[in-house]
């Protein structure tokens, strides 16, 4: 399964261009979509789930063109976890999943089987009798993910699935998504670089509705190599001066001053040592170049 996006433009009724002539190919496997808040990630996902209709451009899913006549065919292949969703507060977790599985057309016995499997995988088994309104934010997020997986979609779209999860839960969800992506396509949107570094081989960076980068995680990380420096300054005032000149990705107090992680094409005229760049550094480097 692959998704082709060609010259896609989405303009809202208020005139804001959310996606601007974007081209992208999403191959099989788990594909990351990275971007700051308001970059256009959710808009793109809403187009892919057929919630939003683009102004121009084409989208195809396994060579099926996104058009009014094909929507039902496309919708059957998709599972979706929106960024914000409130599942039925008066239903128990189990009832909620049974209900949504039924609406999705999953046969009852199959739905129960899958539900057991995913509840186990997301550590929700013991909470199945709790009402949705009694669950914590992280639990609700996990239930949201399970409902998206229930119909075993060929194309899974998850919008910030790890929001509100503790570190252990995050790892569990990331692993679940990686397992699920075998022979399927998973579009994993987030602004947490760490999540993508741990799951994806391919990713795209979106900013102000345009793709700044689309390719492998490895190639993106390469972009920052030789451009990351750890610099030491004596006090806060000096640190502020450095911040005015360079892009700083981290700052911490150490013995005898402050240690700054600086992105710069050339070695800053400070007490510096070069360090290997991380994916986060590369992301900041790519996005700051555009600014």
């Amino acid at each position: 399964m692959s998704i082709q996006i060609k010259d896609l433009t989405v303009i809202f009724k208020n005139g804001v261009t959310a996606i601007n002539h974007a081209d992208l190919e999403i191959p099989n496997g788990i594909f990351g979509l990275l971007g700051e808040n308001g970059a256009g990630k959710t808009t793109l996902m809403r187009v892919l789930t057929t919630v939003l209709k683009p102004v121009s451009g084409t989208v195809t899913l396994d060579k099926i063109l996104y058009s009014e006549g094909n929507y039902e065919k496309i919708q059957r292949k998709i599972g979706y976890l929106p960024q914000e969703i409130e599942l039925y507060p008066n239903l128990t977790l189990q009832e909620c999943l049974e209900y949504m599985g039924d609406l999705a057309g999953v046969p009852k016995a199959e739905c129960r089987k899958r539900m057991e499997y995913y509840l186990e995988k997301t550590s929700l088994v013991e909470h199945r009798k709790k009402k949705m309104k009694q669950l914590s934010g992280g639990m609700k997020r996990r239930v949201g993910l399970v409902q998206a997986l229930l119909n075993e979609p060929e194309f899974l779209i998850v919008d910030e699935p790890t929001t509100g999860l503790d570190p252990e839960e995050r790892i569990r969800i990331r692993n679940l998504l990686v397992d699920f992506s075998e022979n399927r396509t998973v579009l994993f949107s987030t602004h947490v670089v760490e999540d993508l570094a741990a799951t994806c081989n391919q990713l795209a960076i979106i900013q102000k509705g345009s793709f700044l980068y689309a390719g492998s995680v490895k190639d993106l990380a390469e972009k920052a190599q030789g451009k990351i420096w750890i610099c030491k300054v004596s006090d806060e005032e000096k640190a502020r001066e450095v911040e005015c000149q360079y892009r700083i990705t981290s700052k911490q107090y150490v013995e005898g001053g402050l240690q700054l992680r600086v992105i710069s094409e050339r070695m800053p005229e400070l007490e510096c040592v070069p360090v290997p760049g991380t994916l986060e550094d590369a992301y900041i480097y790519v996005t700051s170049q555009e600014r």
Partner: protein
Amino acid sequence: MKKETKIVLPFYKIAYGVFFVIILSLIRGVTYTYEVGIAIEAPLAILTTVFCADTYVQEIISKRSEIHILYPIKRRFCSIMERIVIQEVFLLVLAIAGYGLFFLFQKPITHPVTENETIQFAAYSFAITITIFFWGILVNTLSMFFRNMWMGIGGCLLIWLITNSGGGEKVFGAWNLFSYTFRDIENAADITWLYGKALYSCIGLILIAILPNIIRKRG
């Protein structure tokens, strides 16, 4: 059915529905038994409007509609219809109970023109069933069309004000939405109010028929 009931009949809705009917039967004065149905019909239309306005729109408010869009239309249609039926059956039970409460609190007397209380109750039951059916379907259709339950309630209120008035009675006559309320109560043989009920049953059925299209375009 159990899950749909839990979704569309939360405790607060049951509570305000019950209180509405109790308060109505306490404060709306009637002298004769043939006035009971008249006292209930129009207020119950308002209750139905408010009660059923969020039948589907709750999915939009909670953003669940973005997932619902991926479900087959047939299942979404069945789910909405199931929800409407559950709410309308509940409202019908309230309407019947309300009829009894008027007898309990107001102790109306039988007017000489009333030949049979059972037939009068049957006529009321029929009229109120159509009223609940129509307003429930209408408010859901308008709310879904505008993707906003207040637009649905507002639109229904406007229609209610027009039809439940002297002007509405003159213009629409026996074809009025509230033809039962405006019937000639002193002439038990007059059944022309059935025209209005038949007409709005048909309109309700047409609204049901176009529901799949509204789900597709506005759901």
